[in-house]
């Protein structure tokens, strides 16, 4: 179910050269903002929520999820080098599960650490805000990785569709149509954060906790299952 070599290759593809820079721009920016906020305004719970929720969870986590999730498999399918992996005596299930594991690990590393750090810098985890958002980022990392890994096996435009989901569906439609918020990984993970954070903070979600947990699990499992299914029937075509 887990293969060292596949994992090593995927880590290298994800963290090698320019991708690692792209991945660390956002966390770096979050920490810079956190330092600036603390230096200018001192500890303030509402601003902490604004930064961690508005920048961290709404922008940073999905974008890193897109880069890591699609980057774990899409480039290999795109340039056809996946055949070298497929021709090895490895179940394709193992390939997907290993890549999913790596994508989750990378997304979590690049999201939870900076969120926790930024939260600590801004208000020293008062009212459990930093902890709550860190948990939300961790849970969202798992779901995003599964969804975007699936996208990578389904479409050649995986990055675009991933960004359409995270930018247009979650951000634009989520702010206009409240119904769209029920179907958003961000809101599901926020409902866990709501539980952790102290009462009366601005950490709220539109989705009830049991629903959110069930939906998160369902999306992760179904996404992974279908990604395995897609890879088992994959034919490598050279066009475009």
């Amino acid at each position: 179910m887990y293969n060292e070599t596949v994992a090593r290759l995927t880590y290298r593809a994800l963290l090698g050269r320019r991708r690692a820079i792209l991945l660390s721009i956002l966390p770096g920016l979050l920490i810079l903002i956190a330092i600036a906020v603390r230096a200018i305004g001192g500890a303030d719970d509402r601003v902490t929520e604004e930064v961690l929720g508005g920048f961290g969870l709404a922008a940073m986590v999905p974008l890193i999820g897109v880069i890591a999730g699609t980057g774990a498999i899409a480039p290999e399918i795109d340039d056809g080098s996946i055949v070298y992996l497929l021709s090895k005596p490895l179940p394709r299930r193992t390939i997907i599960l290993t890549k999913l594991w790596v994508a989750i690990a990378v997304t979590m590393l690049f999201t939870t650490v900076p969120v926790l750090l930024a939260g600590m810098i801004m208000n020293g985890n008062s009212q459990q805000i930093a902890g709550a958002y860190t948990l939300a980022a961790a849970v969202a990392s798992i779901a995003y990785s599964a969804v975007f890994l699936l996208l990578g096996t389904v479409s050649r435009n995986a990055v675009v569709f991933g960004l359409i989901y995270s930018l247009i569906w979650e951000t634009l439609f989520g702010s206009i149509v409240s119904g769209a918020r029920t179907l958003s990984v961000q809101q599901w993970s926020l409902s866990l954060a709501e539980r952790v954070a102290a009462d009366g903070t601005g950490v709220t979600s539109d989705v009830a906790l049991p629903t959110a947990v069930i939906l998160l699990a369902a999306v992760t499992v179904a996404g992974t299952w279908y990604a395995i299914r897609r890879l088992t029937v994959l034919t490598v075509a050279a066009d475009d």
Partner: protein
Amino acid sequence: MTIPRQTADARIHDIGYRRYEGARLGARYARYSLFVHSLRGAFGLGRPARSKVLPWGLFAVMALPAVIMVAVASTTGTDELLIDHTRYALSMEPIVVLFLAMAAPQLVSLDLRYKTMPLYFSRPITRADYVTAKFAALVGALFLFTGLPLTISYVGGLLAELGFADQTTGYLQGLVATAVLSVLYAGIALLVASFTPRRGFGVAAVIAVLTIPGFAVYPLQALMETQDSEGAIGWFGLFSPASLVDGIQAAFLGGTTGFPAGVQPTTLQGIASLLAVAGLVALCLALLLRRYRKAGI
């Protein structure tokens, strides 16, 4: 190998090759062709059907609010549109950015990936011509993409008799704001896309560069609001493309900003925004020219 001796009856046969004697259209025509080809490519024209899905799908999403706005205004009988013309493109910013992220790598990354650059430069065009043609095409595509919905709502507004003078000034101001946005966004997107031959990477990079500053600026502006230093909100607006355009349209084109607490920028901040946009566009073009200095690439 022995060299065959020249004999008296040796001759080169005329096998019918012909010289080109038609009109030579020159660099200007090559530039124009490159512009038209790129402009069409941005909308997927002249490409397979599945390349047309995303640009036209995004355009439909972009134009939909304009149609709805007009329908609402004409049934309720108000003479105010829901979204100001000057803020229309900004309020649909994610769509605009996605369109650019599809179009910019299409224009430049593919030329790098398939190594067609030497072919371009074997025509009578220079790298300045190439950069200007691509830049003009992307600006044009973006202007059409954002300007046509405005035109739809303007024409619809006139048909719904919303007041000719109001609508026309609003529409013209909206076009100017759209033009500023197009030039700035196209410059940044083209520069970012020109650095990678891989389309997927280009798409992600364009979106990241265009949206992340906005995500970073807004919480800082919100922080300034809690600190009661509202003058600083406008200055922070200088640090992201969206808030730059927002500041300009609010300062000079009679719009209102989407800044926290609805703070309006001062004239000084407006001028600074204009200068920043001009500087950024000039910088992008200069860097693009530098990028294509090496012919081999």
